[in-house]
């Protein structure tokens, strides 16, 4: 190893020669991504990836233990504890208390606590009234801000791009790198504009936009790229809707998805605990206003979609790109020319026990899950409760409502949303990832079909043998009420 290190340094010379002091001014038009990237380059050596500065590092219990171990082995500490925030979300029980978690889960939670304490890292632990899913509390507490580089050992870090930041998921080795150095080695990705023109019709939401994008480009369509979502339909979304869209960028293979910051962004951030205040706020906003993509800047690729043609979307298969408008029949494998794609579709339909060519509307549902970092914010709960009010969850259906954070839970209770859910016979829970990933005991039984507002319908994702249909909160509620996959629009008139 020593020899290797020396060899590499000798070949490229002293790293200090390649120091890039701050932002490089340039007159050529730049994209939002390019601006953030350029202003975070710490160093670049020939032949090596960029050394990129990380403004905010979010940490959770599942992908950090082995990274903290590496620090311990090497006698290192977290370099910038003030830029590091830890939360417990994946394996925490949603019934409250440690007791409900299993032993390995408990060990993992305690280890995060002790690692955070030993390094002076702020942690939103089990007793915190602000604890929640990492991608919900980052924005909620004001940690997430425009122009930042944000990472987490979690692929849905793309969520934070909704604020005009560059947020992306990293592996555990990289978690260790950032803990120890606040830097990351990265090759610059390509850019892809995802332009959503037009206006959504009633009953069609941000979730349906992103499911439609994924159905169009497939789960590998964004590989190697960072998405920037543009267009009238994106500008019209509130911050929560933008988070829902950016959240699922990774489902198209793009590590990050971004939306240019605007007044909605600033209004959302303003006044939150960790947002800049006073003169620092004015200075920050002035800077944030320079971030949007310049006129004339170019993307490596562009994808477009007309929001006004969209209907509620549902997935029918075992990856998030296998989606259809809810009124459409399931696709026929024979319509696919590529043998691998055909085999993939056949495998998915067989797992889901769905028949090609048949409608997806009316398929019987066992469980409805309202939650996850995609759709568990107060706006999601309001929309769902609004549709559920005065109605009942069908007898054969178990509906779970899991707020994204304890703050969301308290806000919902203050508005009486919990009462609506409970009156409808839905199960009102504590915050956490819950049945999105089924690590905490909240899970499907083999064969059960769930309509879920989460982001992944992979085989077994919500419990071994479970079948997942991804949908918006509105579609989830309509399906809970009907006991079958149902279109929310008839309930809305």
């Amino acid at each position: 190893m020593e020899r290797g290190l020396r060899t590499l340094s000798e070949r490229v010379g002293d790293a200090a020669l390649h120091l890039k002091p701050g932002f490089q001014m340039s007159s050529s038009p730049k994209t939002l991504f390019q601006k953030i990237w350029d202003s975070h380059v710490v160093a670049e050596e020939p032949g090596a990836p960029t050394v990129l500065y990380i403004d905010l590092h979010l940490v959770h219990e599942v992908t950090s233990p082995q990274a903290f171990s590496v620090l311990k082995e090497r006698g290192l500490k977290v370099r910038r504890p003030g830029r590091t925030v830890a939360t417990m979300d994946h394996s925490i029980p949603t019934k409250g208390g440690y007791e409900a978690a299993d032993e390995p889960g408990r060990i993992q939670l305690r280890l995060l606590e002790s690692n955070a304490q030993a390094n002076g890292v702020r942690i939103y632990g089990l007793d915190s009234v602000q604890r929640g899913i990492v991608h919900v509390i980052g924005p909620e507490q004001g940690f997430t801000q425009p122009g930042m580089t944000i990472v987490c050992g979690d692929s849905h870090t793309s969520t934070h791009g909704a604020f005009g930041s560059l947020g992306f998921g990293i592996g555990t080795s990289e978690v260790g790198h950032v803990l120890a150095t606040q830097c990351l080695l990265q090759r610059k990705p390509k850019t892809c504009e995802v332009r959503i023109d037009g206006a959504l019709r009633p009953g069609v939401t941000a979730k349906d936009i992103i499911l439609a994008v994924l159905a169009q480009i497939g789960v590998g369509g964004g590989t190697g790229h960072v998405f920037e979502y543009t267009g009238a339909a994106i500008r019209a979304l509130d911050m929560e809707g933008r988070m829902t869209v950016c959240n699922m960028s990774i489902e198209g293979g793009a590590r990050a998805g971004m939306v240019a910051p605007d007044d909605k962004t600033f209004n959302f951030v303003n006044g939150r605990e960790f947002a800049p205040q006073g003169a620092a706020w004015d200075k920050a906003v002035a800077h944030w206003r320079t971030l949007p993509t310049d006129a004339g800047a170019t993307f490596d690729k562009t994808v477009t979609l007309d929001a006004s043609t969209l209907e509620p979307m549902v997935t029918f298969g075992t990856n998030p790109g296998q989606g259809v408008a809810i009124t459409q029949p399931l696709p026929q494998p024979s319509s696919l020319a590529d043998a691998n794609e055909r085999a993939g579709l056949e495998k998915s339909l067989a797992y889901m026990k769905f028949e090609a060519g048949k409608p997806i509307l009316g398929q019987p549902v066992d469980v409805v899950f309202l939650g996850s970092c995609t759709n568990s914010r107060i706006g999601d709960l309001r929309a769902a409760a609004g549709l559920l009010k005065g109605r009942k969850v069908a007898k054969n259906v178990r509906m779970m409502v899991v707020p994204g954070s304890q703050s969301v839970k308290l806000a919902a209770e203050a508005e009486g949303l919990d009462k609506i859910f409970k009156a409808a016979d839905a199960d009102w829970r504590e915050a956490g990832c819950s049945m999105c990933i089924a690590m905490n005991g909240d899970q499907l039984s083999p064969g059960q079909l769930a309509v879920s507002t989460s982001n992944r319908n992979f085989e077994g994702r919500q419990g071994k043998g479970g079948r997942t249909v991804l949908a918006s909160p509105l579609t989830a509620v309509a399906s809970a009420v009907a006991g079958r996959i149902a279109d929310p629009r008839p309930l809305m008139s």
Partner: protein
Amino acid sequence: MSAPKFSTLTSRCVVLPVQDVDTDQIIPARFLKVTDKLGLGEKLFCDWRYLDDGSPNPKFVLNQPEARGAQVLVAGHNFGCGSSREHAPWALVGFGFQAVISTMFADIFKGNAVKNGLIPVVIEPAAHAALVAQRAGQPDLEITIDLKSQTVSWLGQMPLMFPIDPFSRTCLLEGVDELGYLQKFQKQAEAHEAAHA
């Protein structure tokens, strides 16, 4: 502290040509409650590999006799999509794999793989299809991967170049440790912090 090293490998292979294999299939989430990297190889592809009673599924490729000792996985398009869990390459390496051949890898998986000495080898769809077809008639077919020349070859197939990040390649060939490399830039990081405070 040692970084994994790699130079050349000749081995039989396992073929799993399913496209869009996500990391939830490679290692299901219920096995992520570990605080180390031990034992993940036994859980690799768990829900495809074992029957409900826990016995090996004889139809699954990892349970077939040729899989024993194989160090190369021939996978389908877009291998490793989904979650960023590094447990996926840990499980593959834990099983004994040292390389995966596909026509495309998901970005995060690819980055995680090289950090654990698992080589992501991308080849053209036509070559991939030819490899899968040839292996079907020749279960003991051996594949050679040479990182120095960045080539992959097998019986009857001239060495094919495959792309790999030059920095990753150097790290793997020379056992360079990425964290150690990053630590050299702490002065520059401090300068960045001072300039952006």
